[in-house]
């Protein structure tokens, strides 16, 4: 790859490496091979791997981030190298292509004529001006309007089509950079979470990062109702396989219902850039019914549920995050109780038991809010995926560009036709025609023969 004759500085050598096709192919194959590991070793499940592989292998997996491989430093490094490679290739080649496109070869000299496989010559009676006009008209009609250049005695016509095909590759490369950019933006400022929302409840805080963090979405989402419909067998009895499930959701902002929509799988709700997707559901699941009051009774009380599942938490603006830790059927002989901790910025969370028998217990905390357990009941909840991804539109732009770029690169061809007219003896004109195409030469050859035939048949 490296040009030996040129004196090379280390920077040149690095550059030549970065723009080399060898690097491109190597990185593509490396990315493909590396990706295989992550499909064989189940991601995020070291517990499963521990049952299959030996300890020393697990050790290696841990050291090389094999359980979160696609976000590991080495995989991201490969992606970076990939991006660097295609950026450098573009920077290296695009200016040259632009130069060729801006300054096409308009002079059809004999040496160039010999280098073309598609060429023809003949002689016609008439004047230069007459034949220049005729050829220009014919070429415009059957191919494209030519550019006319006078060179000494001779006149050169140059016509081209599909010049954009030279850019297909660069559009495709650019599209990949768009997709990566969109993905990076989405990862940096976007979030994704899962919400199990019981019928009748509303929330403003959505658990993200597997529930380790609660995100304030800036408005409340309420589940008004939830339905599930099952497939029926040939006798009309439900089979237990869901055909469709749907939630009726409301968006509530400043106490006002802003938006109401019934969502089903594949038909999400969007508000202020946050999408709510119907994802799963739970029927008749145990949950703690909680009552939230103001200590000074300045606002009406609210209720919400804490589902009995690991990491369950509920956020209250101004109060903090209530996280469920434990549950007992009969706590110290006083009936059901749950253990929660209230997480507020700048305060150490302290676990406390809330028995349903003692609703005033939480007043001891001295907060503006008083939390109590009303009881334990069965609820039906709708499972919502929540996503905010400001980069996704950039990704779609990238995807569209990619399809367009690939189509241009593969199915379009830069086709060029040259004609040279030069005066010959006895008031005759020598006509020379040549053609070239970057791709799909077979089809161009037929087209060229047709154009040439038409030109030959022209009479003065």
């Amino acid at each position, binding site marked *: 790859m490296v040009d030996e004759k040129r004196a090379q500085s280390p920077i040149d050598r690095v550059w030549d490496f970065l723009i080399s*096709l060898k690097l*491109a*192919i190597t990185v*593509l*194959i490396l*990315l*493909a091979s590396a*990706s*295989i590991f*992550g*499909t*064989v070793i*189940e*991601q995020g499940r070291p517990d499963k791997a521990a049952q299959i592989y030996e300890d020393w292998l697990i050790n290696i997996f841990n050291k090389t981030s094999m359980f979160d491989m*696609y976000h590991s430093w080495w995989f991201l490094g490969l992606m970076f190298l990939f991006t660097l490679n295609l950026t450098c290739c573009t920077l290296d080649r695009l200016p040259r292509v632009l130069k060729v496109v801006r300054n096409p070869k308009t002079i059809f000299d004999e040496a160039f004529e010999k280098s073309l496989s598609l060429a023809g010559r003949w002689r016609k009676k008439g004047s230069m001006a007459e034949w220049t006009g005729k050829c220009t008209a014919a070429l415009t009609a059957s191919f494209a309007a030519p550019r006319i250049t006078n060179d000494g005695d001779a006149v050169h016509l140059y016509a081209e089509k599909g010049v954009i095909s030279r850019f297909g590759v660069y559009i495709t490369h650019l599209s990949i950079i768009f997709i990566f950019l969109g*993905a990076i933006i989405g990862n940096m400022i976007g979030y*994704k979470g899962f919400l199990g929302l019981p019928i009748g409840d509303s929330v403003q805080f959505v658990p993200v990062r597997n529930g380790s963090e609660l995100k304030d979405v800036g408005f409340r989402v309420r589940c008004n109702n939830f339905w599930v419909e099952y*497939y*029926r067998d*040939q006798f009309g009895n439900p*089979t237990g*396989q*869901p*055909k*469709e*499930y749907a939630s009726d959701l409301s968006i509530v902002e400043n106490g006002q219902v802003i938006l109401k929509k019934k969502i*089903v*799988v*594949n038909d*999400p709700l969007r508000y202020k850039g946050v*999408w709510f*997707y*119907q*994802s799963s559901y739970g029927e008749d699941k145990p949950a703690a019914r909680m009552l939230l009051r103001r200590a000074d009774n300045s606002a009406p009380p609210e209720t919400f549920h804490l589902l009995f599942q690991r990491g369950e938490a509920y956020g209250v603006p101004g109060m903090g995050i209530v996280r469920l830790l434990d549950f007992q059927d009969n706590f110290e002989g006083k009936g059901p109780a749950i253990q929660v901790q209230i997480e507020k910025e700048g305060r150490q969370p302290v676990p406390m038991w809330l028995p349903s028998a003692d609703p005033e217990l939480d007043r001891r905390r001295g907060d503006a809010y008083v939390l109590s357990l009303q009881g334990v009941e069965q609820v039906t909840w709708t499972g919502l*995926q*929540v*996503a905010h*991804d400001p980069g*996704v539109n950039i*990704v*779609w732009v990238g*995807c569209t560009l*990619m*399809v367009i770029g*690939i*189509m241009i690169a*593969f*199915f379009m061809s830069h086709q060029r036709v040259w004609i040279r007219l030069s005066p010959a003896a006895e008031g005759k004109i020598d006509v020379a025609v040549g053609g070239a195409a970057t791709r799909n030469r077979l089809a161009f050859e037929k087209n060229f023969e047709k154009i040439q035939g038409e030109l030959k048949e022209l009479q003065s």
Partner: protein
Amino acid sequence: MEPTVANIGYNIYFFDFTMILLGIASVAYLVGLYGDKPSISRVGTWICVLAALSSFVALGLRWVESYQMGIGRIPVTNLYESLVFFAWSVILFHLFVERKYESLVFGAFVIPIAFVTMLFAHFYGGGGAITPLNPALQSYWLHAHVITCFVGYAAFAVSAGIAVMYLLKARSEAAKQTTGVICMFPAAKALDELVYRAIIWGFPFLTAGIITGAAWANYAWGTYWSWDPKETWSLIVWLVYAAFLHARITRGWHGRRAAILSIVGFLSTIMCYLGVNLFLAGLHSYGGG
């Protein structure tokens, strides 16, 4: 769910008929090739046309029958259906290539792929039952996603078949053989070009297939890419063919190495299409169970 008459339907008789036709067409192409009888190969072509029609009728009937069963969806949603659809795509793509390049020898290498696919569907496709769709699959994206992916897969299958022909032909040309079956193949250079041509048809379709899959996933789950094994394998296939296309630009990667890369590409396509469901866990439904 155990397949019963009610959820199988009459369409599978047409699919079985297609399978038998493809078996006969494979034999006709092979006999035509080895016996140097183009007229027999020509019969193979007509049987292929019939098989394509029979498949088409079967798919249409299956679509109608799914509505009669109260399920109602495009017949490309489980292992059986995806296999028969793939076989149909291969037949169509093959007929297109055969007509365009006017050579009857491809059939002997490509149609057996379709035949084996139909056999596999018949014996391992869960009896061809029409299974209800889970809600995540009920989307218009399904149509665009499946069709683009399968046209891509079919193009790669054709390319790999021709790549095998290329390897045989190149060896025979190197040994200056003048007799035997392989001499009837188109010239190695033409085959090499076809390996490439089929891929430049397949690549945009695979790209569109991956993108429609991502768009759909984003619409269903709010994530366009989650490194699910199926997604990852489709990316692997894409990367292999991207490598092929880049390698093709340099002169060194014509011929033998390009043919091998095309075969590697098709093997990863098979892994993406079937292997992932058979060996790995993931989102896609046609796991055969």
